[in-house]
């Protein structure tokens, strides 16, 4: 088996694919903690549906998918954020409306304007659940992914303290002079970017899993913001590397394989938490 892995990794395109997968998972994990704690998980999910719609339109009009999807998703991110903060329209139903609407329109457009494609349901399936194989990436895809991923990582490190402040207590942050609105929008827009670069690899429907699973697993066990972030990144890197290699070996689609590993890690962390909790409550404790 090791020989087989070594053989795979002697090919440059395998390296490219793995680099993209690792970077995408890293970005998703970095943003995940904040998104989960800010109750933005649904926004991430909604955005990925919007991204699917945008990709379909790009395919129908034979434009470069990234060039259409990126701006549409980023604008949708800001829009969804506004909806979520608007107390008059219920945020969750608005998001559900937009995401299922985008999904429906996307598939409709794909069917109305096949744009030279002979296998519509195959195309849709790829966009929704990721490429059947990790190796379907072009060089431009890889380059764009790498640039965008580094932009996201830079954004996160540079604004780490501000992200913590607006996540922990938004009203305190804005009352004491931090422009919470701007950072919220930046966070949502960055999420949009991550979704665009992750879609090709893991598929629109599965991106949310990459974003929320590492954070939720880490929050079971770790108790400070920094340790949760670091742990999420480690979990995510581990799952993407192991998942990526397994998908090559077993010939399974990348996205679902990586997500399956994330689910396994979540169950393990959850069990650790339960175990710790049980030990604590059995020990004599002062209320």
């Amino acid at each position: 088996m090791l020989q087989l892995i070594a053989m795979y990794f002697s090919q440059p395109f395998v390296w490219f694919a793995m680099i993209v997968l690792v970077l995408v998972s890293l970005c998703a994990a970095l943003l995940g903690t904040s998104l989960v704690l800010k109750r933005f998980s649904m926004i991430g999910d909604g955005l990925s549906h919007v991204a699917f719609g945008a990709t379909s339109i790009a395919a129908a009009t034979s434009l470069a998918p990234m060039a259409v999807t990126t701006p549409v998703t980023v604008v949708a991110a800001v829009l969804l954020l506004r909806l979520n903060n608007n107390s008059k329209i219920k945020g969750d139903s608005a998001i559900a409306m937009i995401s299922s609407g985008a999904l429906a329109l996307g598939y409709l457009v794909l069917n109305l304007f096949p744009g030279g494609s002979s296998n519509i349901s195959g195309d849709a399936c790829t966009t929704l659940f990721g490429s059947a194989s990790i190796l379907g990436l072009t060089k431009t895809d890889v380059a764009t992914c790498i640039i965008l991923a580094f932009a996201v990582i830079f954004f996160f490190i540079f604004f780490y303290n501000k992200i913590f402040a607006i996540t922990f207590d938004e009203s305190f942050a804005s009352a004491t002079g931090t422009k919470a609105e701007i950072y919220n929008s930046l966070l949502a827009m960055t999420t949009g970017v991550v979704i665009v670069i992750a879609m090709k690899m893991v598929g629109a429907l599965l991106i949310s899993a990459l974003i929320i699973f590492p954070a939720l697993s880490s929050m079971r066990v770790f108790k400070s913001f920094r340790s949760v972030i670091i742990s999420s990144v480690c979990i995510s890197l581990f799952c993407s590397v192991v998942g990526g290699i397994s998908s090559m070996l077993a010939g399974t689609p990348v996205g679902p394989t990586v997500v399956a590993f994330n689910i396994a890690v979540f169950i393990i962390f959850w069990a650790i938490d339960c175990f710790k909790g049980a030990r604590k409550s059995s020990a004599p404790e002062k209320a």
Partner: protein
Amino acid sequence: MSLITCKDLVLGYEGHPIVTGLNFTLENGDYLCIVGENGSGKSTLMKTLLGLKEPMSGELTFGDGLRKNEVGYLPQQSGVQKDFPASVFEVVLSGCLNKRGLHPFYGAMDKERARRNMERLGITHLANRCYRELSGGQQQRVLLARALCATTKLLLLDEPVSGLDPKVTIDMYELIRALNRDEGITVIMISHDISAALTYSTHILHISHEPRFFGRTESYLKTEYGRIFSGAAGSTAAKCASEGADNSDSDSNSDSNSDSNNDSNNDSNNDSNNRDNAQLHTAISESEADTAEENSENHKKEGDN
């Protein structure tokens, strides 16, 4: 120029005014206590002062070149999420954020400032503990330490002592007084603890949908409300007294009986909230007793009426 000037301010939600005709000015170094019943618009006023909410009409101006990054704020407990993974040090340090401007990271000075404020509040030993696992009183002190990190000119406190035990309450008041007197920080505090408000503040703003009083604490004591408040405060324990006083206040203003019933309902709701937030040991049985006492007091008064 005054630090804060309110002129004919009207505050409310979605077109419904809660407080009307607010007029007051606050000078640098003042210590203002805002008192009044539940739902009278105290927290709404605080949110407006913090710039989290627009006034419906009227003017609110800040003088003396007061900038937002010179303001510290202690929210009511419910403002912070309960399942948040954050260490105490991370929370306190986040108060220093507004001094950083665009600079992305905290420096040694910020960390020193955070440590000093944690020491002041006696929470240094909690630095690496998880915020959500602390008791209500400890959480309150963590948030105050954060507010102290953020402030250099103005400190706003929304019921700072709710859920604290008597000793910590006194420490907290002394600390706030020291900040006000020694460091010249202007303090605005919402309080139900009327006896403390009268002891420590320089000014009182009493609101109940419309401002009933604004002025120096000494002159407040001479007004009808002031006498009732302080009289009630003498008779029973501090916290109980403030809430009892709220009720007796609305009674004395010859509100209808149903109103005073509502008030006592509000109070008991409030009590149970405090209890949830605080998860406090001893306070539970006490506050239950308080509520019972209040209710019986109310019934007596209604009988008298």
